[in-house]
């Protein structure tokens, strides 16, 4: 059984943090994971930096650029993760673009993920049909979860479809925006979250894209099993006081 499932057995209010591997420094990744785990974050999403992050906002784009300049790449990341594999108990999710998966060699990629303690993967630009046709079996073989996204633009029947394919949880994009747009929750997103609730999905949900503070996180928790914070977290990182800045940020959300 995948540890993501363990997580959602124990109720709601799950906090997931997204950050970019190799940012602010090439070797920050390991340290950030360790500190996040200490500060009681429930789930960690690691972004694999990409040259052309189509679906990401400015903050994540910039962190991607810096991380790439720092020399981050999948081989680097996998070997960094392997070093701390034994200490990590929170589920790790890897988020990247399909081309990175493809170019690396899909099966090698999944194999490396498995060996590095990764539990699930998100490829925001990998179409459902292609996943089902070409990769679903392979994910199962490596016991990795494929996590789907739904947005307020997604019709009900497609949400049902995606929730059936998605494993572990469903990633609910809370507002019509790329990450980091920092618009606080508006009326419209709530209508969308209500719509999701009314579908009575059998899979847990995490809300992401637009959560920046305690308020918005709590709101997300009212409608879903928790929330994902990315841009706001990345922006809060202080290169010279990684530990302090992370603790302060997480504390500002949780307490």
């Amino acid at each position, binding site marked *: 059984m995948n540890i993501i499932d363990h997580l959602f057995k124990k109720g709601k209010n799950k906090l997931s943090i997204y950050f970019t591997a190799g940012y602010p420094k090439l070797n920050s990744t390991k340290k950030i994971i360790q500190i996040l785990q200490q500060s009681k974050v429930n789930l960690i999403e690691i972004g694999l930096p990409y040259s052309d992050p189509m679906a990401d906002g400015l903050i994540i784009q910039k962190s991607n650029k810096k991380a790439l300049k720092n020399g981050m790449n999948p081989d680097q990341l996998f070997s960094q993760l392997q070093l701390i594999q034994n200490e990590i108990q929170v589920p790790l999710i890897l988020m990247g673009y399909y081309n990175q998966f*493809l170019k690396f060699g899909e099966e090698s990629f999944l194999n490396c993920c498995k060996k590095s303690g990764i539990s699930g993967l998100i490829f925001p630009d990998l179409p459902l049909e292609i996943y089902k046709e070409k990769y679903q079996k392979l994910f199962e073989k490596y016991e990795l979860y494929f996590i789907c996204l739904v947005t307020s633009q997604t019709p009900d029947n497609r949400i049902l479809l995606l929730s059936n394919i998605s494993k572990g949880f469903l990633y609910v994009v809370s507002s019509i925006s790329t990450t980091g747009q920092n618009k606080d929750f508006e009326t419209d997103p709530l209508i969308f979250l209500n719509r999701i609730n009314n579908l009575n999905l059998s899979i847990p949900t995490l809300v992401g894209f637009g959560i920046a503070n305690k308020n918005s996180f709590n709101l997300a928790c009212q409608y879903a099993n928790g929330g994902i914070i990315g841009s706001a977290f990345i922006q809060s990182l202080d290169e010279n006081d990684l530990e302090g800045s992370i603790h302060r940020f997480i504390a500002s959300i949780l307490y």
Partner: protein
Amino acid sequence: MNSYLDDKNGFYGDFGGTFIPEILWINFKELKDSYESIILDPSFNKKFESLLNNYVGRPTPLFYCNELSKKYKTNIYLKREDLNHTGSHKINNTIGQALFAKQLGKKKIIAETGAGQHGIATATVCSLLSLECIIFMGETDILRQAINVSKMKMLGAKIIPATTGNKTLKDAINEALRYWINHPECYYLIGSVVGPHPYPKIVAYFQSIISKEIKKQLQEKKGITQPNYIITCIGGGSNSIGAFYHFLENASVKLIAVESAGLGIYTNKTAATTIQGSKGVIHGSLTFVMQDKYGQIIDPYSISAGMDYPGIGPMHANLFHTQRVKFFNVTDNDVLQAAYEISQIEGIIPALESAHALAILPKISFKKEDIVVINLSGRGDKDLKNYIRHLNQFLK
């Protein structure tokens, strides 16, 4: 329908597809569900062709080049896309897509541009059809192409600078896609046969007017149904597919696409995608793309802004893969040479992009009786600065 262009779920052989974030899924569903019924509709085509004829100035001539033919000991025709309104083939596509967007009820158009040709063509059509227009353009390109920026502004378009990456074409497309994600009510009017399905198919269809006319004109002028060669430049591939379209099934028509070698294919200053690139996804499409071993897109280089793209359209990836189209490449220097040659013997200053197609002439041995059609995709006004810089080198 054409077997090379007949997609199976948006794929041409192994290439194509719709690799987009979920948030755009509904937009693409709308496109996929409606595009065939709209753009194949006779009344739509009537409107389209009427604007092509009355506004763009089509049909463009198929011009027999006396001197060039003598020099290369064959029969060379130029398809004069340079004579279109706004100066290149780009307008064929923008007219088509803007009409399509109107049919979909859209009021606001977004588009990317590199050197500015597609941006101007889009701003032009939006002005004509009373659509709001936002153009994304890399900050570097905005500085390099100040005149074209002013043209777009004069036409009423709003320009948004792309400040990420290399701040050129690729980044402008990223920025446009991101904007679209945040404003899904817009219509994204893409500028070449690239991007997620069904864009390549839509753009190819609108550009296919080029080969439709070539076919008719060869019949009228020479009483023949096909040429021996069609030669095009390829940046994204829109002028190329347009010129090939109606001849793809005629295996005896030799189709040639010329890429930019930049400073040379073995330098890291090149845009020769089929040589330097490999299978990968760029801008939502699985195709050939210049990338490193981790799938990071490599910044291309070409003297010509319109050739300066790290990918090719998925149809061309398939045409390359199946060897239906032969790919060549020429260096910046070859291109300048060719541009000066045709200026001085035929009185036509070509776009740097189009000069790529011409630059291949010395590298192929044609038969005396061959009929060679070169697609002259655009005029060189926008490239004068570059040409001037090399004036002394090439003046005879």
